[in-house]
């Protein structure tokens, strides 16, 4: 019985590490900053949660620290990605050419910021577009 729970825990950890790998692959493949943040955040949140849950199933007496870590990752990871996306849009990092609509850049504050660094945004957009 004990052996079975340990093997289930190991398999849960393996699934979590697979999600971590997919998140890192998304970080390489996605075309612009915002899509990279999306792939990175979601996959790493569930990947880390499942990995730690698997370790917790193997060592049932470590539950306290594992619960604190899982709640911490679940709360802190979306906040840091949200803050980074806001900063990226504020300093005018361009979206990819496949973008359909951008309602946020109609705000005057952002537009001023974009005009200041106009040449640079065009240059990076040339590199980003495939």
């Amino acid at each position, binding site marked *: 019985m004990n052996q079975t729970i340990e093997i289930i825990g190991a398999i849960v950890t393996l699934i979590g*590490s697979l999600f971590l790998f997919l998140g890192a692959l998304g*970080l390489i493949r996605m075309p612009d900053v915002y899509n990279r943040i999306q792939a990175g955040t979601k996959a790493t949140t569930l990947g*880390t949660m499942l*990995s730690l849950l698997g370790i917790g199933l*193997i060592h049932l007496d*470590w539950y306290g*620290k594992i619960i604190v*870590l899982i709640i911490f990752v679940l709360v802190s990871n979306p906040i840091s990605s949200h803050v*980074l996306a806001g900063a990226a849009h504020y300093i005018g990092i361009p979206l990819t050419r496949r973008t359909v609509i951008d309602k946020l850049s109609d705000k005057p504050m952002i537009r001023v910021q974009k005009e200041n660094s106009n040449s640079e945004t065009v240059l*990076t957009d040339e590199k980003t577009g495939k």
Partner: protein
Amino acid sequence: MVNLILYIALGFVGLALILTIIRFIIGRTNIDRVIALDVMTVSSIALIGMIAHLTNRVIYMDIALVYGLLSFIAVLIIARYYEKGL
């Protein structure tokens, strides 16, 4: 059996860390590098958890918690620097 599966999982996390380091180097913008650093840290938390099982020491969980806290605060401060200055 358990340790064998854990070593395979360790390999996947290692591959993920290599991919994030590639993104950290080619970057294009600094925000890309910060995201790579964030993903690297969160993957490292899972990695430290697996090492805690393999060496059978619970103290590594505390290290993972403090590492995550420091990285979270670092990301917040970098983003605030880009939006408002220090």
